[in-house]
């Protein structure tokens, strides 16, 4: 290049240029994948492929799509849309590598595969709860404990998981009725874990009726987490959960206090189950959890499995649960406004998905679904199930989600077998009708087991799906709340843990 040309080029480069000279729009703009949802009469929220969202005036989505959006007339909105991957002035956004990294981040929970391994160590139970997911059997029948042979195989299976961090969760019946089996299993895992390079967390799910100091000291020295059942104050809890000759509530509270004292409050958590009866007491249930110093509550609805399907008491419309949820959430936010940090855990999970680029390994709400990818269940009889709920169907002689047998089948046959492959075709909501074009798809998940149990179809039919109804109801409520109440918005944002 001759000198004059290069001098001229440099001079032109150093010339001061006007703002409009940096405009790269040529033939309008291209649409990037996004969706929208009407929050109220005046506002929409538009949501892009990775969950970034913008509140906009009602009708904006249509304006964008019909190319009525003008860069000149609405420069701020236009800039927001370009910067946040809603539209692009190029066929391929120059930022596409960033978008790719975002999508990978959303799916990072897949990287390590199965983490939660549930061992149903016994079917024996000292309670007879009305909604029991587990086919309960009275205490006298020892054939319903998990044999050592199955325990060993289950532990081998857990060690084969590619995940360097695994959780071993003991459930039942009442897990503490088989405490000796638990001790055996933990001792075995502790000796194997260093060989396999695994970090193992232990959880015992228990109604705490049988808890004592000796058991708690054991839990303390092996760093076991306790997951208790607490449905609410006495009138709710005891109505749902029956123990012959005693108040399940009083035993639970005594057990919780003892556990918190010996293990520390951060090692004791509780789960509630919602029944028709519970629905009348949203505030009281929140108050009970607040009183017990749990720092939060997980507002769960009832799964349509097990005795629940047979018990009228447990049937109810998802709408009623949503009303319950909204009242309870309001009450929780009130506590926060008074200066107490108290979290609703289901909302917390959703808010992490909505407000951050990260995802949460919450097996009930991920795509691809949590079954096998995140969780696997070993029944007392050596059968392997895809999820907790799958096992319940098995107890009712529906073996659709039984993946195999710990003794007869290999790891590969179970995890990559025909059943698993069949489920895999419907476990990503990106490719399910009704989900793929839902504005909340990136925050939500797929649950083939739920749809099989309630609709008789693993694919699921979204318009009458109670899973969809619940997810949409909660997510849209959170969007509405964050828009209407600025103080609530700040509180919800403070719950997000990354």
């Amino acid at each position, binding site marked *: 290049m001759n000198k004059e040309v290069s001098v001229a080029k440099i001079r032109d480069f*150093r010339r001061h240029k006007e703002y409009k000279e940096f405009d790269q729009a040529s033939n309008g703009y291209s649409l990037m994948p996004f969706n929208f949802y009407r929050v109220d009469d005046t506002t929409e929220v538009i949501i892009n492929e990775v969950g970034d969202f913008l509140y906009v005036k009602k009708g904006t989505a249509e304006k964008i799509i019909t190319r009525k959006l003008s860069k000149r007339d609405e420069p701020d909105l236009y800039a927001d849309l*370009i910067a946040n991957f809603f539209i692009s002035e190029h066929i391929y956004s120059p930022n596409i590598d960033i978008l790719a990294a975002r999508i990978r981040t959303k799916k990072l929970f897949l990287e390590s595969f199965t983490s939660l391994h549930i061992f149903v160590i016994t079917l024996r139970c000292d309670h007879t709860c009305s909604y029991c997911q587990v086919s309960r059997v009275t205490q006298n029948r020892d054939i319903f404990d998990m044999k050592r042979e199955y325990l060993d195989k289950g532990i081998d299976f857990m060690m084969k998981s590619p995940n360097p961090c695994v959780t071993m969760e003991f459930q039942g019946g009442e897990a503490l009725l088989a405490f000796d089996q638990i001790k055996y299993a933990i001792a075995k895992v502790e000796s194997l874990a260093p060989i396999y390079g695994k970090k193992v967390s232990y959880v015992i799910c228990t109604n705490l009726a049988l808890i004592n100091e000796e058991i708690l000291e054991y839990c303390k020295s092996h760093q076991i987490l306790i997951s208790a059942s607490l449905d609410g104050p006495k009138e709710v809890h005891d109505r749902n959960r029956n123990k012959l000759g005693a108040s399940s509530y009083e035993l639970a509270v005594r057990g919780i206090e003892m556990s918190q004292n010996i293990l520390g409050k951060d090692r004791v958590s509780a789960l509630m189950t919602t029944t028709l009866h519970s629905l009348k007491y949203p505030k009281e249930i929140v108050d009970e959890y607040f009183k017990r110093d749990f720092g939060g509550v997980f507002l769960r609805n009832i799964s349509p499995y097990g005795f629940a399907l047979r018990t009228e008491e447990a049937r109810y419309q998802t709408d009623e649960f949503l009303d319950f949820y909204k009242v309870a959430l309001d009450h929780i936010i009130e506590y926060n406004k008074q200066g107490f940090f108290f979290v609703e855990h289901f909302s917390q999970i959703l808010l992490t998905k909505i407000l*951050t680029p990260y995802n949460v390994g919450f097996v009930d709400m991920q795509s691809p679904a949590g079954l096998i990818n995140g969780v696997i269940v070993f029944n007392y009889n050596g059968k392997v199930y895809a999820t907790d709920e799958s096992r319940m169907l098995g107890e009712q002689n529906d073996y659709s989600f039984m993946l195999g047998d710990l003794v007869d089948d290999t790891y590969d046959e179970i995890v990559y077998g025909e059943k698993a492959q069949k489920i895999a075709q419907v476990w990503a909501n990106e490719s399910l009708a009704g989900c793929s074009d839902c504005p909340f798809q990136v925050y939500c998940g797929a649950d083939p087991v739920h749809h099989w149990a309630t609709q008789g179809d693993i694919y699921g039919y979204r318009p009458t799906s109670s899973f969809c109804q619940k997810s949409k109801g909660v997510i849209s409520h959170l969007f509405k709340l964050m828009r209407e109440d600025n103080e609530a918005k700040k509180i919800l944002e403070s719950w997000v843990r990354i």
Partner: protein
Amino acid sequence: MILKTKGYAVGVEEPLVMIATRYTSRLVSDDYCLISDSLYDEDVYTVSQDSSDKQYKGIFNVKSTSHICEGDIICLRKDGYVQTLYRVNSSNNVLFVTGRCNSNCLMCSQPPIDKDDIDFWFHINMKLITLIPKNCPELGISGGEPSLLGDKLFQMISLIKEELPVTEIHMLTNGRMFSYDQFAESLARINSPRIMLGIPLYSDYYQDHDYIVQTKDAYFQTLMGITNLKRYGIRIELRIVLNKLTVGRLDKLARFICANLSNVDKVAFMGMEMVGRANTNNKELWVNPVSYMIQLKNALEILASRKIVAQIYNLPLCFIPQEMWYATVKSISDWKNVLPTECNGCLVMDKCPGFFQSNTKEFNLINPILELNSSDE
């Protein structure tokens, strides 16, 4: 602060990079040159090792040498200049690698010189690196745009890694050359754990950033550069200069960083230095810092919620609400940092980042802090 002085050069052809000393005994080493400041004249010279016929070469009749400390590293040039390249008593030493730049920022404090000086500075810096005291805590690399050195940049950083293994390296760059993946890979291959790149990003919206940088596609290239660098695990400090053109979308930029660049190691919000182009473009750029404190507070909160370290550089404490003082840093290089007389009586002068000496326009906005809220010390 004086960093350059002049005299008459004798026997100086190539630039000589040497350590300044006032002790003749040190002259046994080739690396040293003598500062001789007598009543009548001041000279800076070296004695060649051909002791049979002592040859003196250096800069004579220098205007002043009192600013040169024992151990400072200086450059003697054939045009008579004596330039201080490294000061032993300062923690703000920077390697100047070129005056050239491939950007054209509106507020550039060091307007680019379109002359090929890369080899000139490369030879000086390669010698300089070997002379720097091994306990130097931090060394900057700046210009112009350091990445224009191409392979020479990696040679220089490799040499720093070898000669100064405990020295932290902070390089200022627009990051655009790193949009070439091999360029980022070459930097990563040096495998120094002590490198951090300071990269400016002025907006989440490409047109705003490109306008401020006065270069088409700068935004996309910088983002691609950051993406590549992060793939290799290089530490990055995002730098956001605060002026009239950047404060409008400050919270949106903070949100953009949280969503898309959450793996950067640090975000620095920087008060603008009113020198060079920033002065020329003052009307378009300058805004009273007090007026953007709300946006800055929001941006800090947004970043804090995602646990991204965010700090405020170059702004004095009296411009900033007390609840944000925790984020301030004494960041202005010592040689251009002043606390004007208007500050007298202020209780927190020792903690204050102070002013750029060229920001005289802001001195009449000074408000000495005469009492502190009880929540602070």
